[in-house]
């Protein structure tokens, strides 16, 4: 993780690629395709940050399993993030609160982002991809 102090004292994450994940596991392929993009970018040596927002916060929820037909879901990919050196995991505070969740419900330690830190996060990455 690459962090710089900014004037207000907030910590802002910088990087090459910010992948924003806004869809839940199983319901569509957006989450898996977004995670795949992040893994590939990291494998190519780019500094990748993940922002879990909206229903995307469910990607980090404990206790997920394969679907009834054996659909793999994405929890296996979440376990691989560290192996790909993707260590910047950010979660939108509003998304957690509005779903009655807290960081204690999540599989991995994350940084919580809210308010003005959100636009700064987008600003500090060269490329932002929304999934």
């Amino acid at each position, binding site marked *: 993780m690459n962090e710089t102090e900014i004037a207000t004292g907030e910590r802002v994450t910088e990087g090459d690629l910010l992948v924003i994940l*806004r869809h839940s596991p199983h319901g569509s392929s957006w989450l898996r395709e977004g995670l795949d993009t992040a893994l590939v970018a990291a494998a190519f040596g780019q500094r990748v940050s993940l922002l879990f*927002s*909206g229903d995307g916060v469910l990607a980090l929820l404990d206790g997920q399993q394969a679907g009834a037909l054996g659909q793999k879901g994405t929890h296996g990919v979440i376990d691989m993030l560290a192996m790909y050196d993707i260590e910047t995991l950010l979660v*939108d505070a*509003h998304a957690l609160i509005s779903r009655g969740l807290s960081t204690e419900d999540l599989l991995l330690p994350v940084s919580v982002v809210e308010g003005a830190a*959100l*636009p*700064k996060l*987008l*600003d500090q990455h*060269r*490329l*932002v991809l*929304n999934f």
Partner: protein
Amino acid sequence: MILHLLNRSPATAGTVDDALAAMGPDDRLLLIEDGVLGALPAQASLFTGLAGRLFALREDLAARGLLERCAEQANIVDVEGFVTLTEEADKTVSWF
């Protein structure tokens, strides 16, 4: 400055809230496809903080019969104006 693209009707999808929350003070918002429903006067209160930074794509308004029904706060641009907005922004982010 980032150009944000929104293609969802604010009347039916919360995507607009995600987009607005991610916008910085100089960022711009361009409504395209079903996003142009956001240019209707009934939706205007959503975008009061975006004076001069809210745009809507003319051909998507026209195709939906909405061109004459827009709120004044939306700057109407044609597809060439869309290209100009992408030139002027450092990057674009699409919300869907």
